[in-house]
């Protein structure tokens, strides 16, 4: 008994974080409908049932739910057991993912298990003569390549942050699946979860973000950025190496393995703008860069750039903005 409307129906892998579907995976439901006029979804973990209820609103006509014991929403291997069952027993052939550690793990595991093809870092997916053709950028986005699939099972992993949820209510049905889980999938467990400490205003909703990268000479330089953020009414974010150094919490990291942000103003200081960072911020309204290297890739995507030393330019800018607002001390 097949629950998917047809084998061509793309099924979207819905990722759950903090009990909710991620926006990017919801957004892929709209992409699936553009592609084939219909969409399905699969969602795994203890909260899957509740999340599934909300998916018809975004266009999922058939949602597969696996909320049996042993599946953790953030561990991939048991979810491979679920998706493999959809392929074997429900005729699913096309699965769309938004990139994440989890999505990459699930897609890769499934590809090996079911001898499927996985193309990742996709910018787009289209039909040509009945076949799926993906577009991905390659070599640090210096060129685009068209990629295809050979064989039945087509797994498409999209670059983070390309798709926003679009409401498109349909009559959806929910199909519960309960595969036997592999022993090795059950051999990894999450033994401890620590909430990261609340550390100031959220990046996700900030209007203005002042971001610092490895160009910062020392930890104290973050104070210069915090000062500028304060003058602009914004918050401070950092690139990954700064988190790796322990200078700032991971909750303030922008990029592929951090947050995806879209403020009105993103001011990048001492950030080179490599792909891992760029995917988290390139949709910002206005991008301003301060960097000492005129060849830094960040200058290729900014609206205004200053080639200079951030330790000089940032405090000058802060002083000027405060002076213009008539509050030299920073009180407003």
């Amino acid at each position: 008994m097949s629950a998917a409307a047809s084998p061509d129906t793309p099924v979207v892998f819905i990722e759950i974080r903090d009990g909710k579907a991620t926006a990017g995976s919801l957004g892929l439901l709209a992409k699936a409908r553009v592609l084939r006029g219909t969409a399905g979804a699969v969602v795994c973990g203890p909260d899957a049932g509740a999340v599934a209820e909300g998916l018809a609103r975004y266009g999922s006509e058939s949602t597969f739910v696996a909320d049996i014991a042993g599946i953790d929403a953030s561990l991939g291997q048991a979810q491979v057991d679920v998706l493999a069952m959809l392929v074997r027993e429900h005729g699913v052939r096309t699965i769309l993912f938004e990139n994440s550690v989890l999505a990459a793990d699930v897609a890769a595991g499934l590809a090996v298990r079911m001898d499927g093809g996985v193309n990742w870092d996709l910018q787009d997916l289209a039909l040509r003569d009945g076949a799926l053709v993906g577009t991905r950028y390659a070599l640090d986005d210096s060129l685009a390549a068209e990629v295809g699939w050979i064989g039945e099972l087509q797994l498409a992993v999209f670059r983070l942050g390309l798709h926003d949820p679009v409401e498109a209510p349909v009559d959806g049905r929910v199909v519960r699946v309960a595969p036997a889980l592999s022993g090795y999938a059950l051999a990894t467990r999450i033994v401890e979860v620590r909430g990261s400490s609340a550390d100031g205003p959220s990046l996700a909703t900030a209007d203005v973000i002042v971001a610092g990268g490895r160009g910062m000479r020392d930890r104290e330089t973050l104070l210069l950025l915090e000062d500028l953020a304060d003058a602009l009414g914004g918050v401070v974010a950092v690139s990954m190496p700064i988190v790796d150094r322990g200078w700032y919490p991971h909750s303030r990291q922008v990029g592929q393995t951090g947050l995806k942000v879209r403020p009105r103003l993103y001011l990048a200081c001492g950030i080179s703008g490599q792909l891992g960072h760029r995917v988290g911020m390139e949709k910002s309204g206005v991008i301003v860069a301060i960097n000492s290297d005129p060849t830094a890739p960040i200058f290729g995507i900014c609206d205004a750039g200053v080639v200079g030393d951030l330790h000089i330019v940032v405090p000058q800018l802060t002083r000027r903005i405060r002076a213009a607002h008539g509050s030299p001390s920073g009180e407003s």
Partner: protein
Amino acid sequence: MAIKIIVCVKIVPRASVALRLDPGTLRLDRSGPTEINPSDTFAVEEGLLLRERVGGTVTVLTMAPEAGRESLRGALAMGADRAVCISDPHIEGSDLLGTARVLAAAIASDQPDVAIFGAQAIDGRGSSTAAAVAEGLRQPLVSGVRTIDVVDGHLRGGRQGVTAEQVLEAQLPCVVALAGSTNVPRYPSFRDIVAAKKKDIETRTLADLGVAASSVGIAAARTSVLALAAPPSRRASGEIIDDDGNGAAWLEAFLTARGLA
């Protein structure tokens, strides 16, 4: 408890060389100088640190054309005990599936307690090889972790999410994928570099591993590159000026004009 550690490293074109595709094959041109994929030097260091804590051996493993094998000396100089390179003409053109089959077979033949992978290959960018290999080996996967340790015969890994930190625990043997620049890789001393020149780099073929040629390479690939398309239209770049002392004033004017300051 002494443990056997394998670190999988990819040999990639050296960072100083601009990457280019071969227009004929649409594959990466690998003819120039090579080095260990930058992410994977963190994996080597993580393996060495683990060895220092719990005892054991570190083997670096790569699947690469013959010409790339010398790049493994960098890892030997850092302190790896052994280096193994799998080379075979049939491997060329492998996608994720072929690569994973070869690496899984090599790992299975060595039977380590832990196989450590880097976060991402600069020329692959899939961050998916570790999960594919874990599936091939039917072993537990501990992915996206910034810290690892072996405690009571289990591997523990720390994952840092945006809102929470998770500690993962898996039974050995298992596969580990790191999250990124998790440490500061050691610089080998001159003496270590010289000593590494004399060390043996073991080579294996598909036949040595018992992998059928038909299960790797183009024949077994499930993806293909169809064509190169026009380079992406980037977000148009705005004005960029040199800071001659007036950079801040210019930026202030820019921000004020847009109502942002």
